[in-house]
């Protein structure tokens, strides 16, 4: 007989809820986005579309308990050159508790209106999160697995107001996407600037679309890898005690506008977690902006 303790059950429930929430919503659309979890490319949301994605990270820090952290991302295409996002973060730690850990608001803007070999995107984010946040959406400074081992009761007392800036450079070359992100993060209350990086490359398994619509066609799959980590901070600009990960990626464009992504990440330094498993599930709503405009018209 399989015995599961209550806290682990809570962790499983939280992860499943995070994974399945988009399925509970109705209305279909389609998109073809890269299966990155940490890296951003220059691909923005189509104007008027809303994408809801859950990004779940599963890990176990040394000396700590299993952690399942989910970030729910609501991404809206304000303009073809401007995407705005809201993240709601939460996590469940086995033998501990399940907590809401905060929110993030971010904007990505393409300053150049044409496609170039290297396309810059400016990224600005405000984070209002507790130290118990374990979504690992970026790794900066001297972040390490010890940060994730603190009990929720202690970690959630520390609240962080942070600003994160990224310079995203991204290229689409011969069906490959290659993206480089340079990250600078600052706790607005105190602390130095912290730096990090994320590099990614992806490619569809087949370039041409098949003549027959098949959910299992190779053109529906995108594979790649990302490499990310911390680069120290302004007090200690060294690679000592920094975390670095390499993570293969696989994305699957499902029917009815859903997208599933999976990535096992492997820590490259002692400070890093040994492994981080990530699962993402996305669902895109078409032309949400138009729903409101139609409403306005009928109201007039």
């Amino acid at each position, binding site marked *: 007989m399989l015995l599961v303790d209550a806290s682990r059950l809570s962790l499983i429930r939280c992860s499943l809820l995070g994974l399945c929430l988009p399925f509970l919503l109705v209305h279909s659309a389609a998109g073809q986005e890269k299966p990155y979890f940490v890296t951003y*490319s220059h691909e923005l949301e189509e104007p008027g579309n809303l994408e809801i994605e859950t990004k779940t990270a599963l890990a176990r820090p040394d000396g700590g308990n299993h952690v399942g952290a989910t970030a729910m991302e609501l991404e809206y295409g304000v303009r*073809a050159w401007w995407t705005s996002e809201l993240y709601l973060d939460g996590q469940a730690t086995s033998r501990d508790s399940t907590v809401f850990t905060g929110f993030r608001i971010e904007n990505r803007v*393409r300053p150049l209106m044409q496609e170039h070999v290297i396309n810059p995107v400016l990224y600005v984010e405000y984070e209002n999160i507790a130290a118990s946040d374990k979504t690992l959406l970026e790794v900066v400074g001297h972040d390490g697995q010890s940060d994730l081992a603190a009990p929720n009761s202690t970690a959630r007392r520390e609240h962080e107001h942070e600003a994160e800036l990224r310079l995203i450079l991204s290229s689409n070359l011969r*069906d490959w996407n290659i993206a480089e992100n340079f990250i600078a993060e600052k706790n607005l209350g105190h602390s130095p600037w912290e730096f990090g990086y994320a590099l990614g490359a992806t490619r569809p398994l087949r370039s041409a679309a098949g003549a027959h619509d098949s959910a299992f066609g190779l053109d529906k799959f995108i594979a790649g890898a990302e490499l990310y980590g911390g680069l120290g901070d302004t007090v200690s600009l060294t690679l000592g005690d920094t975390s670095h990960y390499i993570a293969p990626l696989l994305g699957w464009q499902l029917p009815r506008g859903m997208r599933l992504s999976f990535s096992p990440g492997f820590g490259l330094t002692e400070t890093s977690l040994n492994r981080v498993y990530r699962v993402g599930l996305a669902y895109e709503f078409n032309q949400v902006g138009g729903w409101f405009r139609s409403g306005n018209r009928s109201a007039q």
Partner: protein
Amino acid sequence: MKRQTTTILLLLLSGTLALAAASHSHWERVPARDHARANPFAGNPAAAVAGERVYNDHCAQCHKAGARGDGGKHPSLRSEQLRAVTDGDLEWFLRQGDLAHGMPSWSSLPQAQRWQLVTYLRSIQ
């Protein structure tokens, strides 16, 4: 003060670049090399069918089923203008988009799918 001035100058520069990019017709800006490029799927019925699938996945939400447009901001793609340009022009435009006027760049689509899309658009003219 100095920082504010730098920020304003950067914003102005970005705005100027954006306006400069938007001020010419798309087709006038197509480089000669792209204009002359041949569609590897030209006239291929299977590619047109695949292109219709790509269209339905990515374009129909704005340009509507059959590429007939929504009568407003999203134009019909069955037009004299599209008949007049080359396949290379169309592929270039799909890759570039027209960000200033709401058309996303489809450079993220594999090139073969962009050519399939062009084949489909040709087949409905």
